[in-house]
């Protein structure tokens, strides 16, 4: 039995890769082949689906929009989370425990509950259908997450570092930027990774808050499925392309994934 303990992860990885392979498979087929026959690899290989996406603005704008608001959100979330996490890590202040707990409860908020209220709120302040709106909205759960992760990493840095810097005459912000941040660089990486991840994959709020100008790729994909019949090949290609940023990001942070999880802070 010991011999075959690699079997379980192996089978699981096959299970994980199968639908992804199938998606790629379909993305290189013509609609005729998809609907007409059942083949395990494209017999009529075609790049038409991808060509369409790269040339049609309605499609590639979807990607650009998504990337735009995800990056915005990551930057905002991590930037404001840094000083806050520092405060939670180093100081005691009135209501700090309650504040921390309240922040975490926002992670438990069902997006469905906020869909309509967000629609009304962001429309009321005139931010409807902008990238900024989605970036802001995702802050609801990404900021608490970033604060939580960063606080964990910061608590691992001894206070002596801060004290030495202050004794040496560093003003607070200079210490923070020049000394502290490089020390927790991997923590920032982990926090940014998770913010990116949760913002990239979340789509209910992204769709609710946008219509044309900032429409994320998800909305474009659903439109294809319902209105112009079932262009499965195109849909598959669009889907396949959404996997790429994710794969990129995982590859770059692969060494930090274990560390971030190890802190048990996800």
């Amino acid at each position: 039995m010991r011999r075959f303990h690699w079997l379980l992860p192996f089978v699981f990885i096959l299970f994980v890769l199968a639908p992804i392979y199938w998606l790629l498979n379909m993305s290189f087929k013509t609609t005729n082949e998809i609907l007409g026959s059942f083949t395990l690899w494209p017999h009529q290989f075609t790049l038409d689906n991808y060509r369409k996406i790269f040339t049609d603005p309605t499609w590639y704008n979807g990607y650009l929009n998504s990337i735009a608001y995800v990056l915005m959100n990551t930057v905002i979330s991590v930037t404001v989370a840094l000083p806050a996490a520092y405060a939670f890590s180093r100081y005691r202040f009135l209501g700090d425990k309650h504040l921390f707990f309240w922040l975490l409860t926002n992670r438990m908020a069902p997006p469905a509950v906020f869909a309509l209220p967000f629609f009304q709120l962001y429309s009321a302040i005139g931010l409807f259908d902008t990238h900024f709106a989605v970036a802001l909205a995702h802050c609801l759960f990404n900021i608490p997450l970033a604060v939580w992760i960063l606080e964990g990493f910061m608590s691992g840095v001894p206070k002596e570092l801060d004290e030495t810097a202050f004794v040496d005459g560093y003003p607070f912000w200079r210490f923070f930027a020049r000394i502290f941040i490089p020390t927790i660089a991997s923590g920032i990486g982990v926090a940014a990774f998770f913010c990116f991840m949760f913002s990239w994959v979340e789509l209910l709020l992204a769709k609710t808050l946008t219509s044309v100008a900032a429409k994320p790729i998800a909305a474009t994909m659903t439109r294809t499925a319902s209105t112009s019949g079932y262009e499965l090949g195109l849909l598959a290609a669009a889907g396949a392309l959404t996997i790429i940023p994710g794969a990129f990001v995982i590859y770059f942070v692969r060494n930090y994934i274990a560390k971030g999880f190890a802190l048990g802070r996800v």
Partner: protein
Amino acid sequence: MSTKVPNQKAWWLVLPVVVLVAFNAVLPLMTVVNYSVQETFGENVFFFEGVKWFEQILHSKRFHESLQRQLLYTAIVLAIEVPLGVAIALAMPRRGPWVSVCLVLMAMPLLIPWNVVGAMWNIIALPDIGLLGRSLNALGIEYNFTRQPVAAWATLIAMDVWHWTSLVVLLAYAGLSAIPDAYYQAAKIDGASRWAVFRFIQLPKMRRVLTIAVLLRFMDSFMIYTEAIVVTGGGPGNSTTLLSIDLVKIALGQFDLGPAAAMSLIYFLIILLLSWVFYTVMTRDEAN
């Protein structure tokens, strides 16, 4: 654990976070609470109705059914994903070149936009042209998830397992990697069996990570929306209409502000309550 210094000026550091999160949390919630106790007939005219909407929701058969479906769904998903994730993490080598390759491959489902996840499984489950659908039917199993509720449930659960088990694996693996080698060495010297090593060393040391895994999976599966609606649309009929799907139907579909708001509050409260219960039960021993 270094001691923290009391400093009220720390509020300035926390202020941006509070502003941004409160803007997104408090303002909408206030709206929700507002709607939940009022009735409108359009034209921005509101009448205070007290707890009428809450009563309506709590007595509505539709809500009860959605809630039951949701509870069943979450229970099944937890029962499969947590043991499976732990088993996979245990089966993986503790060191070596294959580890990061495996973890990266396994992490891929976690970074796919949820609608694409739903679309993938929708496509792959199509009875005539999907890999899964066609294979099952070829094996003689009658499978059509657009018509059979059981098939729809099975597809939904398979999708969730595919999507989220990796999270449990990553967490459990991190927890396992944190165990120093000396424990395994001592166990070898003590002549402990494989099962004893799991029961007395690995499981206790993974406790904290497992708590987080269970909590996260509970919360996220209870809130599931996008993948589920893309793959089955809540159907056939409403056999896979889980709580979020039902809520969005009422709120954005029917624009029934009052009932939607009341349901939202009840929904949120249920999650908070159950999360608290889970958390307390699982960390109770740590306090001893």
